[in-house]
C-alpha cells in the first residue's frame, strides 16, 4: 500500500514521462536514494517569457506607477529614459562609467531620502553638469528636505568632481497609474 501511494507521489517528480517502473529506492522515500536513476535530459515545458522590468498581473490590489506599469519595449514609445547621457552614441567614451555612476546614484538617493521617493530618479547630464530630478512625497517637512538637498548636492559634487544640481518636485502621494 505504501508503494502505490509513493509511486503516485513520485510521479510528478518525473514529469509526464515516467519511463521505467520505480526502483525500490524511489518507491519508498524513507530510504535515501542512491543516485543511480535513469539518465535522461531533464526537460520541463519551456518557459519562454521575458521577465525584465515587468510587473506581473496580480489580484488587482497592487498600485503601480506609470513607469513600472510599462515594459521596456515601450521605451521611446510610451516611456522616456531614466538616464540621459551621450556615452552610448557612436564613438563616445564612458558608457560603462556612466552606468556605474547611475547605479550608485540611484542607491544613494534611495538611502538619502528614505521613504519619500515617489518614483525613479531621473538623471540628466549636460556637459559637466549632472542634474538629478527627484519626485518626492510630502513626508518630511520642507526644512528637512532642504537639508538633504544641500547635503546631497555638496557630497556628490565632491565625489564626482562635477557640479550636481537637484531639482525636486513634490506630490501628495505616489502617483498610481493602475492597479495590477
Amino acid at each position, binding site marked *: 500500500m505504501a508503494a502505490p501511494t509513493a509511486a503516485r507521489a513520485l510521479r510528478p517528480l518525473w514529469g509526464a514521462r515516467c519511463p521505467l517502473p520505480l526502483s525500490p529506492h524511489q518507491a519508498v522515500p524513507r530510504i535515501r536514494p542512491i543516485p543511480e536513476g535513469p539518465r535522461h535530459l531533464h526537460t520541463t515545458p519551456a518557459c519562454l517569457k521575458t521577465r525584465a522590468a515587468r510587473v506581473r498581473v496580480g489580484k488587482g490590489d497592487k498600485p503601480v506607477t506609470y513607469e513600472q506599469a510599462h515594459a521596456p519595449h515601450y521605451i521611446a514609445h510610451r516611456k522616456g529614459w531614466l538616464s540621459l547621457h551621450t556615452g552610448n552614441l557612436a564613438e563616445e567614451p564612458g558608457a560603462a562609467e556612466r552606468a556605474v555612476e547611475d547605479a550608485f546614484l540611484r542607491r544613494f538617493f534611495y538611502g538619502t531620502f528614505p521613504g519619500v521617493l515617489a518614483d525613479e530618479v531621473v538623471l540628466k547630464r549636460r556637459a559637466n553638469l549632472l542634474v538629478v530630478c527627484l519626485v518626492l512625497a510630502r513626508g518630511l517637512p520642507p*526644512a528637512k528636505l*532642504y*537639508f538633504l538637498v544641500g547635503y546631497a548636492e*555638496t557630497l556628490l559634487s565632491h565625489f564626482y*568632481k562635477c557640479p550636481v544640481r537637484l531639482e525636486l518636485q513634490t506630490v501628495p502621494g505616489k502617483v498610481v497609474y493602475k492597479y495590477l
Partner: protein
Amino acid sequence: QDPTAAHYMFQDDPFLMPRNAANSRLFSLSKESGRNAAKYIIKQFPQYFDKTFAEPNIPCLMPETLTPQIEGVNEEALKERIHLRRVKDSVDLFDQLVQAGTPVSLETTNSLLDLLCFYGDGESTPEKEEQKEDLEEPGVQASEQKAPKRQFQRGSQSSGSRWRENNNAARIFKIMPERNAHSYCTMIRGMVKHRAFAKAYDMYIDLLNERHKADVHTFNALITAVPYLKERFIERWELAKVFLNHMAQQEVQPNLLTFNAVLKTLRRCGGVGRSMSPLVIKEMEALDIEPSLATYDHLLFIFYRGADLCPSGIISEVLDDIQKRSFTPQDPDDGMDFNMSDNLHCLSLGEKCCDLRDIKLAYQLNKAMEKGDNWKFIDMDRLNAYWSKFFSLLCMMEQIDVVLKWYKEMSPSLFYPTPKNILDLLQALDAANHLEVIPSVWEDMKQLGFNRRQDLLEELLSLMSREQHPDEIQLAFAKCAEDIKAVHEQTGREQTPLEWTASALSHVALLFSRAGRTQDAWYVNMMERFQQINRIPTDQVMDEFLNCAKQTNCPDEAIKLVKLAASLGLPSSQRLKSRTEEEFVLSEKQK
C-alpha cells in the same frame, strides 16, 4: 523677473516655496547646514574623495589637506605650520627651536608674530579660517552663502577675545633678539584688534623711540583706537590729528582705509565730527581717493544721528554720487554696516521733516541698488528689512494704485511683508477708500501666518465693519469674519484659541448681521458674549441685529434679542422693545 517666484535658491515647488520671512530664513539655513554636514563628512573621510579623475583637476572639489607634511624640529616645519594657520603647533615648535638653540630668522619670527596677532591667542577655528589675513579683502566673496557670511562677519565683529597679559605674542616679542619695524607694527595691529588700546599706544611710543617707521596699516589701526584712548571729543580729534601729522612726517601715504578710520573716529566725536567731516572729504578728493560705501555710511551717521536734526542737502549729494558709480567692496565695513539700510533709515527720519522729496530719494536709491553689483552688499535678512521700509514709505506717500502695483510685484518674490507693512497697507486702502481689496489682503495674511495677530485682526475688523457696503462686498467681508471667528475658536491642534475682545466680537456680529446671516450673528451673540467672557454688546450691534432680523423676517430672533438686552440690563433695552413692537407683526403670545 517673475513676481510670483521665490528666490532662486529655493526649489520651484508649491510645497517647498517659503511663504513668509521666517520660513525663507529657515529653508536657506537648513540648506546651508546640509552643505556643512557634507563638508564635515568630506573632511572626516578625505580618502574617499581624493581621486583626481577630472580633467583638468578642480581644486575646490577636492578635500583640503590641512595636516603638516614636514616633520622634525626645524625652521621649514615652522614655516609650514604658520602657513597652515596652526597657532598652537607653531608656538610649540618655536619654543622647541629656541630651546634647542637654533636661530630662527627674523622673517619667520615676524610671520609667527603676524599669525599670533591675527588670531589673538585662540586657535584658528574653522570659522576664522575663512578670514583672510589682509584686512582689506572683503568678506563679500561668498555671496551665495548668505547665512554663514552673516555668521562669520558677526563673529569677527564681536571677536571679544581679549589681549591677555603676557600671552604668546608678547612673550615672543620680548625674547626676540632683534626687532624691526614690521614686528612693532604687527604687535600694534594685533593689540588694537584685540582691544588692548593703551598697550598699543605704548608700543607705538616704543616704535618711535627706536626710530622705526610705521606703515599705513598701523596708522589705520591707531586711528581706529583713538576713541578708546581719550574721552572728550576735542581730545579725540586732537589725537587723531597727531597721528595724521606723524604719518605726514614719516612720509606714509594715506589710503582709503585711513580716511574711513578717521571718519569712524569722528562718528564718536559728536559735534566736532559734524564740523570736521566735510574737511576730511575734501582731503580725500584732493588726494584723488574715491570714497567707498563705508565713507558714505560714516558721513550719514555723523549727520543724521539725532532725530531732530534737519537734514542738510547731504543725503541727495550722497545719492547722486552713489548713482554715478557702481561699487566694488573695498572696506570690510562696506558689507557689514549695511550702508543701504542706513540710508533708508535716514529717509524715514527725513520724512518727518520734509515731505515730497523723499519718495524720489527712495526711488533713486532703488535704482542705485539695481545697478551693477550693488545688491550684493546686503544679505537676505537685511534685504527684507530694506524692502519692508521701502514699502512703508510707499504706503505713506504714494497713490493707492502705485502701492498696489508695487505690492503685487514685490510681495512673494522680493520680500515678505511684515505685520507693520500689512497695517500700513490697510491704512492706505482706508485712506483711498478701496476697502473691497480687503478680502484679498486677508488671504495674504493667512498665507503669511499673521492670522493670529490681535492688532492686525482688530484693524481689519474695524475697517470692514465701519460702514455699510454694497452686497457682494458685504458677503466677502462676512466670509472673512467667519475665518476670524474660526481662528478664535480653534481648539486642540497645539494652538490655544485667541481670546475674544469686545470690539472684535461686536465687529464680527455686525458683519454677520449685515450680510443677513442671522444664525451666525445670534450664535456669536449668545454663546460667546453671554457665557464666557461677560462682554457687553454695543447699541450699534443691537440695532444692526434688529435690522437684520427685520430683513429676514424672524420676529423670534428679535424677541430673543430683547430678552438678552433685558437680562444684561442694558439701558437701551426699552428702546429695543418699543422698536420691536413697532416694526414687527407680533402675535399676542409674543407680546
